[in-house]
């Protein structure tokens, strides 16, 4: 059976690892989650035109994509 001090150290080590993993995931989420990266800079409305995938015309209005409907 472990002594209480060793058990406490082990517990703290696991907590530190869990905290490090949580911080890493949070950091990854911030960098990789691109929900906000294409938002227009303050004071401007940026609209982009292009495509999302082959021949799939898309407008990004303040970062929000909309695919263009086919004309009748």
């Amino acid at each position, binding site marked *: 059976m472990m002594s209480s001090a060793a058990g406490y150290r082990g517990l703290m080590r696991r907590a530190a690892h869990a905290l490090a993993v949580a911080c890493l995931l949070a950091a990854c989420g911030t960098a990789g989650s691109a929900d906000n990266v294409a938002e227009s800079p303050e004071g401007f409305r940026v609209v982009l*035109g292009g495509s999302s995938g082959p021949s799939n015309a898309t407008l990004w209005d303040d970062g929000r994509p909309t695919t*263009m409907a086919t004309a009748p």
Partner: protein
Amino acid sequence: MGRRPSHNYGNSSLTGLFIEDDVVYAAGRTGLLNRAAVWTDHKSERVAGSGATVLGLWVDDGRPHLVGTSGFTDRGTIWVGDERNTFGEANANATNVTVDGDDVYAAGTIGNAVEFAGLWKNGVWAALDQSEAKVNDLFVSDGKVYIVGGYGLAERAGLWVDGELTPIDDVGVVVNHLFVEDGVVYFAGWSRSQSVAAYWVDGERVDLEENALITDLFVRDGTVFVSGSYGLRGQAAYWVNGERVDIDDPNAEVHLIFVTADPA
């Protein structure tokens, strides 16, 4: 407001983008038959004329002005609202259109084996003086006509102001995009020797990062916006005064940019 996911409504591509009074206009081609279309706040409408293609878009007073080709012989065509007119010159090919006051300007080329570059002002053709000239972009501000493109056999980059050529001195430069605001001339392109994308503010060159490509240029209140891509995978992005903003969609390609003041 939440993000609206993209849906595949069929194959379409865009060649023009404009915003007037917060209404977004886009032009391009759509569907299996590649029919020319204009979208007004995402509602699509076919452009009149068999085999029509649209290359340039400008909106003035709620009326889209389009240039491109139409008909079985691909005649150079301008559409103003519901009205369609073909240019009288043989093998006319208009690629850019702009409106300044009551005047409508279109730029492009005429001729077949020997092409001449120039512009139409209210339908009247005037060629640039230089041989082998090529028009890449057109801007008209306060009655002054600005054109960027290339000229001569070496396709040297140049800026024309009211028909007068100013060579762009950087060696091996290609200039494709142009904007004028408060008398300041902005243009963008790349250097052929090292493929470095760059834009110029009043002749002062600003390089973007390596492996970048500029697809469009817009200036608002002195702030320079360029769209394009960078890196070996062609990540879509735009730059604000040289600061990059990534588009999160890995399949995105961005060809056009338009910027207004934020109404909020």
